[in-house]
């Protein structure tokens, strides 16, 4: 029996018996979101690259494919996942990455995971095998459910196969370092982001702004003259450590918050230092301040906050939704998963 058929039957049986399922890929992102009390539904064995023709800029792979394997395959052809997904462990799979909708430092300049999802094959909570989107760059037939499933934490459907747009790796990539305050960093990043410069990363912590430039060798050299700063020796290593939360900032026993705010937002009025990524649009905050205070600060700035690691994980971890929007989420969940068996509660207690 094929993996697809096995998974389909497991989901159908669970739906019939109203048995909650906890979808499991590599387990590398188990720390994210709320815990799921359910029967494990392992999907890691459904793996392997299905189709990859580099000149198409598209790769299709099964959800259980290790992210590292996928990236190595692309790298061998001079290509990459431009949303630079964090792995958070060697076991990271493609399916988990898309289900969590995670994107790395290149996100503000290249796009998010959802921007590169062209299509998915999946199984909804009724055991139906469904294909949305496809392998083409432009596709407006039917609702864009493949992007809707991205970042839904497995609460709507079990991802089986994913079609992704990929991009050429830049010919040259450098990082420039400038000492400055956080306020100066926010101003500079957003000033440059409004200029036609080949930015691909902007991060600030410990009184240092790090700017990454990517493009042709000539283009990067010209941009470096505009931006200025001292060149960092091991550029690749730094952004990798930032992406994987291996910088000293993340080595903390305090609760870790992720704040997603408009990039030019002034430094938040919180009594703790943030690590700035995404040119100011993503701010990491290690703090034991009360959750309400952190959420209010993010919301006041026009964004939202997620309790990423640690802290009290019994309540909501993502920013609570307004009642009307939560009600719509519940109705949408019901259309995919009427029995409420797929990762119940992982995203919000009510979903």
């Amino acid at each position: 029996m094929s993996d697809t058929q096995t998974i389909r039957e497991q989901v159908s049986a669970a739906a019939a018996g109203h048995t909650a399922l906890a979808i499991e890929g590599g387990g590398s992102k188990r720390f994210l979101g709320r815990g799921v009390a359910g029967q494990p539904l392992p999907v890691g064995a459904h793996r392997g690259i299905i189709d990859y023709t580099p000149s198409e800029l598209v790769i299709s792979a099964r959800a259980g494919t290790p992210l590292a394997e996928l990236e190595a395959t692309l790298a061998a052809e001079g290509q990459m996942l431009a949303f630079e997904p964090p792995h958070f462990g060697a076991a990271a799979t493609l399916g988990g990455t898309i289900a969590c909708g995670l994107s790395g430092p290149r996100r503000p300049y290249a796009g998010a995971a959802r921007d590169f999802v062209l299509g998915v094959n999946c199984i909804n909570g009724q055991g139906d095998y469904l294909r949305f989107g496809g392998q083409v760059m432009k596709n407006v037939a039917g609702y864009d459910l493949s992007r809707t499933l991205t970042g839904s934490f497995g609460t709507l459907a079990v991802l089986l196969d994913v079609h992704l747009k990929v991009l050429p790796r830049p010919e040259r990539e450098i990082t420039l370092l400038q000492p400055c305050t956080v306020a100066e960093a926010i101003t500079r990043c957003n000033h440059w982001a409004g200029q036609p410069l080949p930015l691909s990363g902007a991060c600030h912590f410990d009184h240092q702004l790090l700017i990454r430039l990517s493009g042709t060798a000539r283009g990067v050299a010209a941009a470096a003259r505009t931006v200025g700063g001292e060149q960092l020796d091991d550029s690749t290593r730094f952004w990798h450590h930032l992406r994987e939360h291996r910088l000293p900032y993340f080595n903390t026993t305090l609760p870790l918050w992720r704040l997603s705010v408009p990039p030019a937002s002034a430094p938040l009025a919180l009594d703790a230092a943030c690590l700035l990524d995404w040119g100011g649009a993503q701010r990491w905050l290690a703090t034991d301040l009360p959750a309400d205070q952190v959420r209010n600060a993010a919301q006041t700035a026009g964004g939202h906050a997620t309790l990423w690691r640690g802290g009290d994980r019994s309540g909501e971890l993502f920013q609570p939704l307004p009642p009307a929007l939560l009600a719509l989420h519940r109705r949408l969940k019901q259309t995919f998963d009427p029995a409420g068996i797929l990762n119940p509660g992982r995203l919000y207690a009510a979903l």
Partner: protein
Amino acid sequence: MSDTIIALLRARLPEHCVLHQEEDLRPYECDALSAYRQLPLAVVIPETLEQVRAILALCSEHRVPVVARGAGTGLSGGATPLGNGILLSMARFNRILSIDTDNRSARVQPGVTNLSISTAAEPYGLYYAPDPSSQLACSIGGNVAENAGGVHCLKYGLTTHNILALEIITIDGERLDIGGAALDSPGYDLLALMTGSEGLLGVITEVTVKLLPRPQTAQVVLAAFDSVEAAAAAVTATIASGIVPAGLELLDNPAIRAVQRFIDTGYPVDAGAILLCELDGEQEDVAAQIERVNQVFRDAGCSSLAVSRNEAERQRFWAGRKAAFPAMGRLSPDYYCMDGTIPRKHLAEVLNGIGRLSQEYGLPICNVFHAGDGNLHPLILYDANRPGELERTEELGGRILELCVGVGGTITGEHGVGMEKINQMCVQFNTAELQQFHAVKTAFDPHGLLNPGKAIPTLQRCAEFGAMHVHHGHLPHPELERF
């Protein structure tokens, strides 16, 4: 019923906001797919958010269908009125509310035209990237409803990649904020779901778009090839070389000739096909990429090659591409524009297939399209005054779309399904998938009042279409479940 809803609307709205006399309704009977015409019960043109809420709440209460309309430039009949429904024109929501230069975004009302956003952002060195060919006239609300694309999608994406937030009103008159000012928002990606939903889920009353820095420079390479196959191979070679052009367009020989008869483009009229390849960005980056593209095109055997030396020349190179549709209008009384998208590797095969279908039906077809992302726009030339020719054209169009689906493509890349491609949806999606789509609609619109009958076919309709098609023996994927 019709008198009741008109009376109720007139009671709630200023007189000039409700049109119900036939001569006033006539201008709204179709969008840019003018083969489909229908007068609505009434046209309402609200001026405030409260009026939109009141209209929708009334329609919900009295179970009257509503079709929202932006500028009416859509090509798939998404804004074709329903005879038993209200047409909701968002034309008076035409203000740019704010431009946030620090965060590079703009809050605009849905009736604002695509191009006027870029015009307003120009003083700040910013612009709105998606550029559908109708950008002078089309509205941003319509762009979101259709997930509009354009010439520069390959590098800059579609509407869905270029918006941050929406304010929508549900059929019950409830206001919802979707997305936000940050780069992502908590919960499901409803922004993606709303984008391209063709007015079936909610009415858009405000859009926050992303603005990008204007590229420092843009240059176009114009290259001629002896055959469509050679040009298609050059497209593949360009992408394989690690370049993502801002635009990569192909015109086949019939299209080149049609355009040349309309304006003097300087395009080589004997070429099998030409490619227009635009590179944009910083001066140095563009210079480096132009060198590489030139080399790729020479290696691919181009018969001539020119690079725009200044902005005037760049505009001249593009003029022919931009004149392609009006040129067809000169050549033929009517033309029908298709919108299938295919994996690029099948370009030559599908173009040849289209050529064969053109001969089979005796209807000329010109191809002018976004080669870089495999989005075909075959233009079928016909004369609607000849009995049966429109029907044959539509059948030919349907065959072309099925050809696209057969190689793993889609029936619509950027124009939407609307009424036009509703039957072909039955070819692309199976019963369970269509049922999922219908279920999603009920989560937003339980009584099916928003643009009903568009975009997602009923299973009944597909059963009838399927039966007809099996009879003709053209159905691809015979192994798949049908109904």
